[in-house]
Structures are given as C-alpha cells and as structure tokens.
C-alpha cells in the first residue's frame, strides 16, 4: 500500500507541478528567456511578458488563468514591488520576486510587500522546481477551515513534502476551489468585483475587512496579532495566514494614510467648515462626480488635494482631500449645533474627501465594485459624489457582505446608540474585510470618526435627526469618496463620532451616493444633521434609514449616505447643515453631499452627532480615537470632513482606517484607479 501510494504520489508529483500556470515578468530578454526555459523544464505552463502593465492586464482579464506570478524587481514601466502589491491585492496570487540584487534590504522589502519568495538571479532550476509549494500553501490557507478534516489529511501529506502528497495536493486544489466557493460567502466578491469573484483565494470583502478592522481596533494596532484577530473575527474559512498577510497590508496602508491624514487634517482645519465648495470635485479626480461637491469642494479641494498627495489614494486622495478639508469637521465638532455645522461643513468638505475616499475605497474594493457603487450612488445621490458613492456603494455592498447591514447597522447604531452605530457600522465596515470593502469600512470608520466627532458634540446634530434626512446626501457624497476620506475624518473628530462607525459606512455611502443625498432623500432621515458628510450621520439617522435605505448604497453605505447626506451637509456645508439639519434632508444632503463626498465622514459625524447619538459619538470617538482609524481615514478619505468633529473624526478615523486599509491595499493594486497607492 505504501508503495502504491508512493508510486501514485510520484505520478501525481510529476503531474501536479506540471499543471502550474506561471506568469513570468522580466524586462531583460535574456533573463526572461532563461526563466521561461527553466520553467518549461519543470513542466510548468509558462506565459511571459516583459511589461508589467501587460502582465497586470493579463491577470485582470482572467483571474483564474494563472496560479503564480514571478516578477523581476527592476523594471522600467513599473516597480516590481508595486506589481507585487497589486497582484496580491487584486488577485491574491502568490508572487515570487526575482532580482540580480540579493541585498537583504530588498529581500525584506519583498517580504513586507507580500512576496511569497525572493529569488536571486541567476535562478537555478532546483529553486524553480519548488515554487509550486507557494501555490499550494496559499490555496490551503484559504479554504482551510472549510476543508476541515479533509485538509488535515492532506496537510499531513502535503506538508510532507512535495512529492508525497501530490495526489493530496491535487485533491486539495480541487477542494480548494470548492472551499473557495464556500468561503466566498464571506467575501462579497461575487457581485461586486469581478476580480473578487470566486477564486480559490481569500477575498477581503468589505464586510470581512470591516470585521478585521474592528478586531484590530479592539486589540489595538500595536497588539493586533493575526491569531487574536482571527479569533475575534470569528470567520469561518479564514486562516491565520490570511489574516497575517492582510494585517501586513493593512499596516502599510495605515502608514500611508497617516501621512496623508495629517496633511488633510491640517487642511481641513484650515479650510474651515464652510466649504461647501469643498466638494470641489477637483480633488476627486477619481470622483468626477464630485463636481457637485465642487461647490463645496473648494475647501475640500484644498484639503483634498493635499490629501491626494497622500498618494495613497491616488484618486481618492483628491477627493479625500476635499474631505480633509472637511476637516473642518473638527470645526464641526463644536458641539452639537455648531459641531454639526462644522461637521457638516466639514462634511461637505469631506464629501469631496469622502468621495475620494470612497473612491479609494472603491479602489480597494477592487474597483469594479466601486464603479458599481458609483453608479449606485449616482443614481442615488445625484450629486456628483454619486459616482463616487456608487462605487462605494456598490463596493460597499459587495464588499460588505452585508452592505445593507453595514449601513443599516450603522443606522441602527445610530438609532440605538449613536455610538454603537459608529462602532457598529464602523466595525462592520471595518470588518468589511477585504480592502475592497475597505471603502465601506472606511466609511464606517470614518463614520465613526466623524460620528464621534459629530456625535460627541454633535450629538445635537444628530438630534436634529432631521439633519439626517436633509443631509442624507452628504453622506452619499461621502459614500464613495468619503469613505476613504472618511478615515481622515476620524482624526478630526473622534469626538463625537461615535457615529463613525456609522459614518464610515456612510462615507462610503456618501461617496457613492455622491452625497448628493439623493440616496438619502428617501431617507429623510433626519439627516438633517447635515452631518451627512458623515455617512455616519446617516447612520444616525437613527439607523433608520440605513437599514431601510439600504438603498442605493447597496451596501448600506448608501444608507449611511442617505443619512449622511443629510448630515453631510455638515461637512461641507456645515453651515447649512446646521440648519439643513432640520430642514429637509434634501438640503442637507446637498450640502452634505458636498461634504459627503469628502466629508462624508465628517458629515456623517456631524450627523451622528446630531442624532444625539452621543453614545455613538463617544463610541465613534473611541473609534475615532483610534488614531489609527483616523489616520486612515484621513489618509484615505480625505475626510476632509474632519471638521465634523467627533463624528467626523470618528468617521474619518474609521473610514480612514478602513480606507487606509483598503487604500493601502488598493493603492497597490489600483494602479488603474489612479490610486496611487503611494507606491
């Protein structure tokens, strides 16, 4: 029996690695030819290209076409590490780096960017014979839980060594696919991101990412270890390795965001609330839709632009910048009424940011969803942000496995406890998992932040409740962008944003819904808060709408947006927020929309605040406090709305966080998104 097994194993051994489909990328023709020949000798199916962009294109066209990517580090058209990140984010394929330079620093860089291995040229065939292990390993860790015992069995064998368990491995591969499918429940990929479609890889949906972020926040970014995060997340089918690599990316993301965030924060503060122009869509390059925001963008744009430099978001940044401008959210922070206005204005500002963030979020999401979101948002928000939102929304939706939930939850949170909302939404968004979701997450985070900001002080904002409705839009603005920008918001406002979580969601929504609140309009949520910007606001809106809104955001972000929108006005419109808060959400929304885009986070916060979800605020604040979040938010979401004050802060933070993550992730990947992942 043993002999037979061995024999069969060896047979499979011969077969197994042979099935490996490798994509080799190297600009040096000699090296490429050599690599190709070596790989063919190992019986792999090789596809070569000397252009990194071409490689990406091929990978994106069909995610299942390749099992492994080998890439040179030094390439003229794109840095190998950047390609590595992108591939890791978007397709989650194992990537092996190759270089003539074996400097440990470079090797380290490869590791931090997520490479499975680092080979030094000239490569020997023996080294290539073993690369299949990376594919197996990756596949195993993904659906691992699903397989359960099955894997166990295989594990034993496969761990054994390449040859013995070939058969197992093969089996595992098959299983993996199946697991993948099962696993994909958590991942929203299915609908949203084609990229994230069922692949035997872990896809970090927004929802999943949200959970992740929540877990990380709970543990504290310093103390967050994969094992504990995994436990906290309590997601089936997720392995420690998945979490570990995701955490790594997240950390990078945060770093990036923090640098951007700080910029934004400054900007936002400087801009003051008034930015209805904040929406300046300008920053939003990606958003495009931000135009609506443009009015407000002015402020935001400045901030956002600043943000954009953050680079992370590349695209998002710009919008984010606006959001940042929203930072005025901090302004918003002023308690309640004031805060709200501030936040709203900031929100408004945020909108752009949010929008941008959302964008970034979308970016993260893998963009496709974001695009969807945009569309969603657009329809919903009407505001420019929509596009952004749409993306976010879609993203959010898709990402967050339960987008609606996220938002709804946020809204619920709002209602129940503003704080909770923030947190909840935040968490949700955060856990959105997957960066794609990040945006949504960010939003959440942002929301939280913003909420916090808003919440704390603006609880009054929320109170207006009406604001929500009015502002709803802002959120939408934020939705897409804000999402990302949201995080920035966090920083601003931690204070009240307990809503952040909510906002965060909103940010996403906001942006997606393009703050234009169209989303929320239906909500009528009391977005009035104007916090709108803070998607959170939407959440505040006593969860109402969110859940209900479920709308366009699809993710719920819309919901948030809706509310946020209402709130959002807060950010950019901040001023309007205050009054709009009570007014109809429509008004707010608009303003917020502006905010929302950027500020959504901020707006949200304001809204949140308004909701009086003080709890939320506090919570959001707490969340927002997570500098991590905020930073993220900042970075991401340009949450200009920071001004949202607590809510914004929360939102921003949340969003940022999420965004950061997403952004971070997306940054890499989103080359296309013009997201400059800061690489």
């Amino acid at each position, binding site marked *: 029996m043993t002999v037979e097994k061995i024999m069969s194993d060896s047979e499979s051994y011969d077969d197994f690695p042979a099935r490996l489909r490798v994509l080799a990328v190297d600009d*040096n023709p*000699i090296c490429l*030819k050599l690599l190709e020949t070596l790989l063919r000798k190992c019986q792999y199916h090789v596809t070569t290209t000397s252009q990194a962009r071409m490689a990406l294109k091929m990978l994106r066209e069909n995610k299942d076409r390749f099992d492994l990517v080998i890439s040179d580090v030094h390439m003229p058209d794109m840095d190998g590490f950047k390609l590595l990140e992108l591939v890791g984010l978007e397709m989650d394929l194992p990537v092996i780096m190759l270089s*003539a330079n074996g400097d440990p620093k470079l090797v380290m860089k490869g590791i931090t960017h997520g490479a499975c291995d680092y080979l030094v040229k*000239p490569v020997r065939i023996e080294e290539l014979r073993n690369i299949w292990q990376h594919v197996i390993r990756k596949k195993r860790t993904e659906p691992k839980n699903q397989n359960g015992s099955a894997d166990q069995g295989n594990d034993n064998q496969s761990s054994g060594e390449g040859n013995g368990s070939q058969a197992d491995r093969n089996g595992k591969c098959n299983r993996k696919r199946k697991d993948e499918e099962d696993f994909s429940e958590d991942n929203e990929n299915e609908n949203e991101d084609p990229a994230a479609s069922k692949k035997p890889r872990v896809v970090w949906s927004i929802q999943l990412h949200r959970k992740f972020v929540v877990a990380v926040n709970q543990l504290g970014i310093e103390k967050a270890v994969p094992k504990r995060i995994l436990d906290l997340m309590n997601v089936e089918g997720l392995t420690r390795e998945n979490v570990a690599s995701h955490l790594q990316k997240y950390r990078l993301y945060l770093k990036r965001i923090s640098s951007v965030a700080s910029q934004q924060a400054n900007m936002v503060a400087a801009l003051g609330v008034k930015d209805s122009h904040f929406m300046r869509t300008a920053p939003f390059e990606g958003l495009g839709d931000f135009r609506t925001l443009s009015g407000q963008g002015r402020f935001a744009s400045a901030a956002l632009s600043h943000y954009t430099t953050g680079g992370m978001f590349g695209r998002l940044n710009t919008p984010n910048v606006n959001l940042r401008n929203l930072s005025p959210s901090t302004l918003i922070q002023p308690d309640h009424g004031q805060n709200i206005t501030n936040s709203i204005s900031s929100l408004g500002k945020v909108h752009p940011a949010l929008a941008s963030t959302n964008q970034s979020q979308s970016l993260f999401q893998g963009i496709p969803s974001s695009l969807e979101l945009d569309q969603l948002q657009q329809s919903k928000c009407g505001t420019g942000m929509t596009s952004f939102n749409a993306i976010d929304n879609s993203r959010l939706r898709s990402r967050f496995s339960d987008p609606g939930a996220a938002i709804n939850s946020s809204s619920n949170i709002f209602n129940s406890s503003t704080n909770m909302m923030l947190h909840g939404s935040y968490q949700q968004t955060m856990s959105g998992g997957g960066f794609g979701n990040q945006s949504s997450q960010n939003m959440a985070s942002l929301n939280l932040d913003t909420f916090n900001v808003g919440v704390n002080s603006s609880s009054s904002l929320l109170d207006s409740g009406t604001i929500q409705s009015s502002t709803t839009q802002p959120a939408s603005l934020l939705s897409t962008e804000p999402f990302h920008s949201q995080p920035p918001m966090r920083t601003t406002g931690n204070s009240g944003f307990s809503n952040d979580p909510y906002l965060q969601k909103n940010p996403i929504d906001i942006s997606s819904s393009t703050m234009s609140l169209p989303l929320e309009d239906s909500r009528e949520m009391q977005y009035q808060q104007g916090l709108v910007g803070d998607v959170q606001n939407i959440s505040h809106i006593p969860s109402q709408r969110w859940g209900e809104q479920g709308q366009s955001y699809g993710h719920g972000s819309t919901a948030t947006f809706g509310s946020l929108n209402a709130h959002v006005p807060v950010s950019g419109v901040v001023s309007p927020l205050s009054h709009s808060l009570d007014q109809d959400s429509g008004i707010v929304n608009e303003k917020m929309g502006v905010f929302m885009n950027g500020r959504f986070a901020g707006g949200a916060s304001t809204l949140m605040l308004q909701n009086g979800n003080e709890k939320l605020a506090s919570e959001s604040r707490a969340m927002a406090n997570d500098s991590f979040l905020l930073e993220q938010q900042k970075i991401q979401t340009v949450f200009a709305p920071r001004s949202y004050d607590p809510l914004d802060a929360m939102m921003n933070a949340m969003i940022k966080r999420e965004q950061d993550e997403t952004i971070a992730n997306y940054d890499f990947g989103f080359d296309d998104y013009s997201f400059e992942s800061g690489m």
Partner: protein
Amino acid sequence: MQRQLANMKQSLFDQGYLDEQFIQLEELQDDANPNFVEEVVTLYYRDSARLIQSIEQALEKSPLDFSKLECLMHQFKGSSSSIGAKRVKSECTQFKEYCRVGNSDGCKRTFQQLKKEYATLKKKVEVYFQFARQIGPVEKACRSK
C-alpha cells in the same frame, strides 16, 4: 575532438570567463531546445551591444547620471549572470559600486575594462561554439554531462 572541446570549455571555466551558470544553460538544452545555449548567447550579444552603447552615451554626459548608469549596468549584470559570464559580471558589480559612491573616473575606467572582458569573452565563446558545431550533436551530449 571531443576532448579538445572539453578542454576548451574547461579552460574557459578555469580562466573565469564562464561559470556554472553556463553549465545550467547547457543542461537546459535538449531535443526540444537543441540550440538553446547558442540562442541565449546570441540574444545576450544583441542585448549587451545595446546596453553598452547606452552606457557609453551616458558616460559622455557631464555630470554623470549615476542612478541611470547604475540602472543600465544592473540590467547588464543581470543578463551577464544569466549566461554565466563571470568576468563581465564582476566588472558590472565594480561599475555599480563606483556609481553608488559617485566616482566618475572609477566608472569610466571600469567600463573600459568591462568592454575588454566582454570582447574577449565573445571571441572565446564564438570559437567554442564553432568547434562544438563541428564536432556535432553527439559530442555535445557527451560534453554536457
């Protein structure tokens, strides 16, 4: 004849013109890829000629753009190491080091040295291949082991 070829190859190794990588190339040569080594080496000549020209142009500028030079040389080093051109590779390393510290004279000097080594290697390898072709595929198989 076989032995002559073997000796020739051995001397190339002994003199440090080629290293084990070259053997790897030969091992990759099989029925599916009968002229693999020659193909790769030819490709190398072509690519190197291009690089050498670029480097020469860059060296004429003043002041020298070290990062660009380093980048070009990195490519050259990569291909040289891929075919096992040992001496050329070490010159490349030296050149890169001079670039790193910003030593213009060092760079220029090393480059001249590099060109010389490259020319020598090319000649020797050409002779080797000619001889190998004369001997025939059978010999090649023997030699490869």
